[in-house]
């Protein structure tokens, strides 16, 4: 941890840029997430230890399951083939995580906490699935674009409901988005159950048809299922996210509202329209995640699939990545690695039961969020508290629930 700024001898004056202040500004943004990561793994290891396993072997086994060892030049032969396959899976899993993290981060910039990525993801998923299964005979690029567009629109619609409610009635988005999540999950199961409106051609299975080949995303590395081009779409979305926020009037308005809604209102920014747009666009990112998953490798859906919680991981990714594009990218890789490394296909049950490992990774995610949220704690641990004038937490508008 050489990134720790050296504490200055004198406490810096508040408000004046000092050398130490600048050092903290430059590296402090990365310091807290890094320290949080280390702390979370330490406490996670403690839980492993208490339940009678060796944390080091468990962590190493998890790491080898992620496929990140593909980047090591000394890995060769069969091991390299396995690593490549694992890495493809990790990147495939990282894609929706990055995108649902953007759904959280974008709303966050406008001062909103979007827990509804789950519902928005599923509505986007279903919209793209409908395009993929119900429309036939289109050229591949057009069909793919249409599917992705439908996914984005579906997600925007679902996020827009919460945004509309927040804008018109002040209903708090934390509650409305959670309710919309459950409605999307049960509603989705209803559509594909036996006798459901979108159930596939096999009447005895509660699942949809498989999408047309012309709607499938291109696979460029490996096969069955290999890595599809979704990861590039996710990177493009990171760029779009950054451009909207930093280079457009809309983004400026959203950030102003997030920073101080009252001040934004006085300077003529339509605060409530910003709330609506922020949640709608955020929903679009999550909807895109759903569309990429179904067009990229799932190709169909079963009612039992609706339990998956990819978007909840997205929240952790956004918080750990501090809502910054680069941070979200790496946090997405980290969490995807955790998930793939702990899945039953990769983890040797002799070393650590996968059933435990996936819950362990949920716990580690929670610890990340705790520690990232409490930067006061991290700074305290680095004994910087005495030297840095603590900024009080930015005061929000009292939550109008």
């Amino acid at each position, binding site marked *: 941890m050489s990134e720790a700024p050296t504490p200055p001898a004198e406490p810096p004056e508040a408000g004046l840029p000092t050398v130490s202040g600048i050092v903290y500004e430059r590296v402090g943004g990365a310091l807290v997430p890094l320290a949080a990561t280390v702390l979370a793994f330490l406490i996670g290891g403690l839980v492993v230890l208490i339940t009678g396993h060796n944390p080091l072997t468990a962590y190493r086994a998890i790491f080898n399951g992620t496929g990140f060892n593909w980047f090591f030049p000394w890995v060769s032969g069969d091991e390299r083939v396995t690593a490549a396959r694992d890495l493809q899976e990790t990147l495939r899993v990282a894609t929706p995580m990055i995108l649902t993290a953007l759904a959280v981060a974008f709303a966050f910039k406008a001062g909103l906490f979007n827990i509804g990525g789950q519902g928005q993801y599923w509505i986007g998923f279903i919209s793209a699935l409908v395009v993929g299964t119900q429309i036939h005979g289109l050229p591949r690029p057009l069909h793919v674009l249409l599917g992705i567009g439908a996914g984005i629109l579906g997600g925007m619609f679902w996020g827009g409901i919460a945004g509309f409610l927040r804008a*018109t009635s002040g209903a708090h988005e*934390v*509650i409305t988005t959670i309710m919309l999540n459950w409605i999307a999950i049960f509603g989705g199961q209803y559509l594909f159950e036996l006798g459901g409106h979108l159930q596939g051609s096999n009447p005895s299975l509660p699942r949809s048809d498989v999408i047309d080949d012309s709607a499938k995303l291109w696979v460029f590395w490996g096969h069955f299922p290999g890595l599809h081009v979704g990861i590039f779409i996710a990177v493009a979305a990171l760029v779009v996210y950054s451009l909207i926020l930093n280079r457009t009037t809309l983004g400026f308005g959203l950030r102003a509202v997030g920073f101080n809604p009252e001040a934004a209102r006085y300077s003529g920014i339509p605060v409530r329209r910003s709330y609506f747009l922020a949640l709608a666009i955020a929903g679009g990112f999550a909807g895109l995640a759903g569309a990429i998953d179904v067009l990229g490798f799932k190709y169909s859906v079963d009612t039992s699939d609706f339990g998956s919680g990819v978007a909840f991981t997205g929240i952790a990714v956004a918080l750990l990545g501090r809502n910054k594009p680069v941070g979200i990218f790496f946090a997405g890789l980290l969490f995807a690695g955790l998930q793939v490394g702990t899945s039953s296909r990769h983890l040797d049950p002799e070393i650590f039961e996968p059933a435990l490992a996936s819950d362990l990774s949920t716990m580690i995610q929670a610890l990340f969020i705790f520690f990232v949220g409490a930067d006061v704690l991290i700074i305290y641990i680095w004994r910087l508290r005495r030297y840095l004038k603590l900024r009080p937490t930015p005061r929000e508008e009292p939550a109008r629930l």
Partner: protein
Amino acid sequence: MIELLDRYRNARTVGAVGIALGVLAFWLTLPPFSIRAFGVPIVVGLAGLALGFAALSQGERRLGGFAIAFGFIGGLAGLWAQGVDKATLEDVLTAGLLASTLRFATPLAFAAMGGIFSERSGVVNIGLEGMMLIGAFFAVWGSIWSGTWVVGLLMAMIFGGLLALVHGVFSIHLRADQIVSGFAVNLFALGLTGYLFSALYPEGIPAGDVSRVPNLALNFLDRIPGIGSFLHDVFGGLSLLVWLMFLAVALSYVVLFKTAIGLRIRSVGEHPRAADTVGISVYGMRYGAVVVSGVLAALGGAFLSIGFVGTFSENMTSGRGFIALAAVIFGKWRPGLAFLATLLFGFGFALAIPLQREAGISENLVSTFPYVLTLVAVAGLIGRSIPPAADGRPYIKQ
């Protein structure tokens, strides 16, 4: 368009819309629409009911009352007009429905009372869900380990309180964003309970006998002339925890509004600086209130596991903590009103069972009812529910 809606955001309009929905619930079933779907009048009628309740809670007594009545009658009349045979209706709407409304409202009410304590002291607690889940798990664990449900309840309360303490430390001393901290509490509880459950019970079901909270058989109710058998059907066989819930609601009201401690809790939630000035420990009050909220939420979770189904399953709270939070807001941070709100949401859960069984509506579809109801209710509030002034704001000692 958002600006246009503003003009109509008041309690009278809400009440009027509620009445309109109640009428609509009936009207849709008549020609020319003739909708013959069992769920339609129920959903529309319930929406009217919810709006009526919203209007009522904003002080519009007459219109609100009418809207509730219209919503209820409209929904029923709609069912009747559809020609659903009478026997089915009777099977759906029974005394058992009221009893199961109470059962479904119980975990919500416990958690809502917890939420009121926490938020009245100025700490937003969206971690209720996680605290319920912890309570649900440790109640099962404690009751297996000791063989008695009393220890199960105690364990639930202890670990719920501990988890709440973590939320307290992060949001009071460390001044983390309280919503982020609460979310982390939920995620942590989900991971921890899942981990421990898989580690302790690899078969996926609790090994050993789960001692369940007993039901109180109140047979004397049957002997009351006239309404005796009805009372017996509703209240005669409820779990002890349901009665404890009534007690918790009453106690919450008394403590918060009739005692000095309650005044202190409310004062640190409204104006911590002023409270600090007169010598009230802001941090102490907030820690106390947050821990109480964890204990109460855990009791709600314990009811789900050892009071109701008698086992634990992963993420078994499925959003109930958030519904309880909606009830807190719906009930304007007051125990009595919040309890009424939990009854409304509990009714949504309770109705799902007979609707599926008797009317053959898809289980998945009826499962969305309580969530739709909560959404409508929160949206119908029209921003008139005002939280404690310092809710969600960390306090920095000077």
